[in-house]
């Protein structure tokens, strides 16, 4: 995936206003199958996998025992006991090893590396569904669901998910079918979009990027991902997550903790990853928002500074830039 094709701004705006297409084939896939598939995934993934219906999609994090985040991932339930989990490229090998290690403790589950089996195209934007629907043999799956469809001559797993804050679909296709789909969707008006636009779009939508906003040094509650953690399922790391959550509810010990907030720069300037927040804290992601025309980003700040409207000061390479904690997402469709 290139950083850009025509340029980050036109690519970004194409996704916001019409349809963009991203080649995200670098992302990994792990298939978990067998009678014990649910039990294994329930142990590994933070969300309640038992609530995932056949054809459903679910977001979760993968935690270490101490609650540190190994990855954030979408899992699709393809059949009663067959699941597909999409990994971040940088974490894929570690995730797969983690799945395999823990699968050994279950009697009847197969964990298969599917990285080479799938190419992945994300078609995103208000016109994305219409473009894909035009070459599909049946109605596309709704948001947060997945289904096999025929697109032209190709059998494709279509997922109603994305990373842009827009409607759209992600297509998991066989590698030899993907270039044909790419060309056909371009011909129908999808604009090729690169890594830079993917990053600005996800930041406006306040989606986490592993390596920036998530790491083994941070837990899901800190990262604002408590909503996808169901400690009662007993997933690896649940005890650590519960302890942080209970401390937060009780209002004890929480104030020295940090929380991930969305911010906007008040005035000129663009904060970048690694910039320091005065008084404690660090910018984990920062860019100029092409939609809003201002510097935006995500930052870990002391819990006491995490309320919406709190004024921050960010050291941007020696210049102090005022910023304000904002509600997530920073950009909302139609706003």
């Amino acid at each position: 995936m290139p950083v850009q094709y025509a340029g980050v701004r036109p690519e970004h705006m194409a996704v916001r206003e019409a349809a963009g297409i991203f080649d995200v084939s670098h992302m990994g896939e792990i298939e978990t199958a067998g009678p014990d598939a649910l039990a294994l995934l329930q142990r590994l993934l933070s969300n309640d996998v038992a609530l995932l219906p056949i054809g459903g999609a679910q977001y979760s994090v993968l935690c270490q025992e101490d609650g540190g985040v190994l990855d954030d991932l979408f899992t699709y339930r393809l059949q009663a006991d067959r699941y597909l989990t999409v990994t971040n490229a940088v974490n894929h090998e570690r995730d797969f090893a983690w799945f395999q290690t823990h699968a050994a403790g279950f009697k009847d589950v197969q964990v298969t590396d599917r990285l080479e089996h799938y190419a992945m195209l994300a078609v995103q934007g208000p016109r994305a569904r219409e473009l894909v629907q035009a070459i599909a043999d049946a109605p596309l799956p709704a948001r947060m669901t997945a289904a096999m469809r025929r697109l032209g001559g190709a059998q494709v797993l279509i997922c109603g998910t994305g990373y842009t804050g827009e409607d759209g679909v992600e297509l998991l296709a066989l590698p030899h079918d993907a270039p044909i789909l790419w060309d056909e969707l371009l011909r129908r008006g999808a604009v090729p979009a690169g890594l830079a636009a993917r990053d600005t779009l996800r930041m406006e939508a306040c989606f986490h990027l592993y390596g920036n906003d998530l790491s083994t040094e941070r837990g899901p509650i800190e990262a604002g991902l408590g909503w996808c953690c169901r400690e009662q399922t007993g997933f690896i790391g649940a005890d650590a997550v519960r302890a942080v959550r209970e401390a937060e509810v009780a209002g004890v010990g929480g104030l020295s903790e940090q929380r991930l907030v969305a911010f906007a720069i008040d005035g000129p300037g663009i904060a970048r990853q690694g910039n320091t927040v005065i008084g404690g804290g660090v910018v984990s992601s920062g860019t100029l928002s092409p939609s809003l025309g201002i510097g935006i980003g995500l930052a870990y700040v002391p819990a006491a500074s995490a309320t919406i409207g709190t004024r921050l000061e960010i050291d941007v390479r020696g210049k102090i830039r005022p910023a304000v904690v904002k509600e997530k997402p920073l950009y909302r469709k139609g706003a």
Partner: protein
Amino acid sequence: MAEANYPTDLLYHPEHDWARIDPADPQTATLGITWYAQDALGEVVFFDPPAVGTTLVKDEPYAEVESVKAVSDVLAPMSGEIVEVNGDLAADPGAINEDPYGGGWLVKIRLADSSERDALLDAAAYSATLGG
């Protein structure tokens, strides 16, 4: 401008900066970044000008230009003191892309040592450093 362009009336620093010595006042020069630099950077979205009076040291960074994806230092091709900054860039930083040798100029300086020009490249020599 869409095509590479290196005017022959400018002097070039190998780190992709240009200086135009004022023919009417050879002790002053206008500075900017080259077509190659703006093309590599992509669409410029922010230029934070240094203050008038700031001292520039040849080969040292004196300002930053930012695209959506990156921030880049601008090096001084010659030493001197800033006498004027391009205030229009605050509202229209894209001028650095569209017109890097005209409306996209960055600062004007009073030269500390006009003999520094001898270390700079002419358009042909600078273009040659860019290869193919």
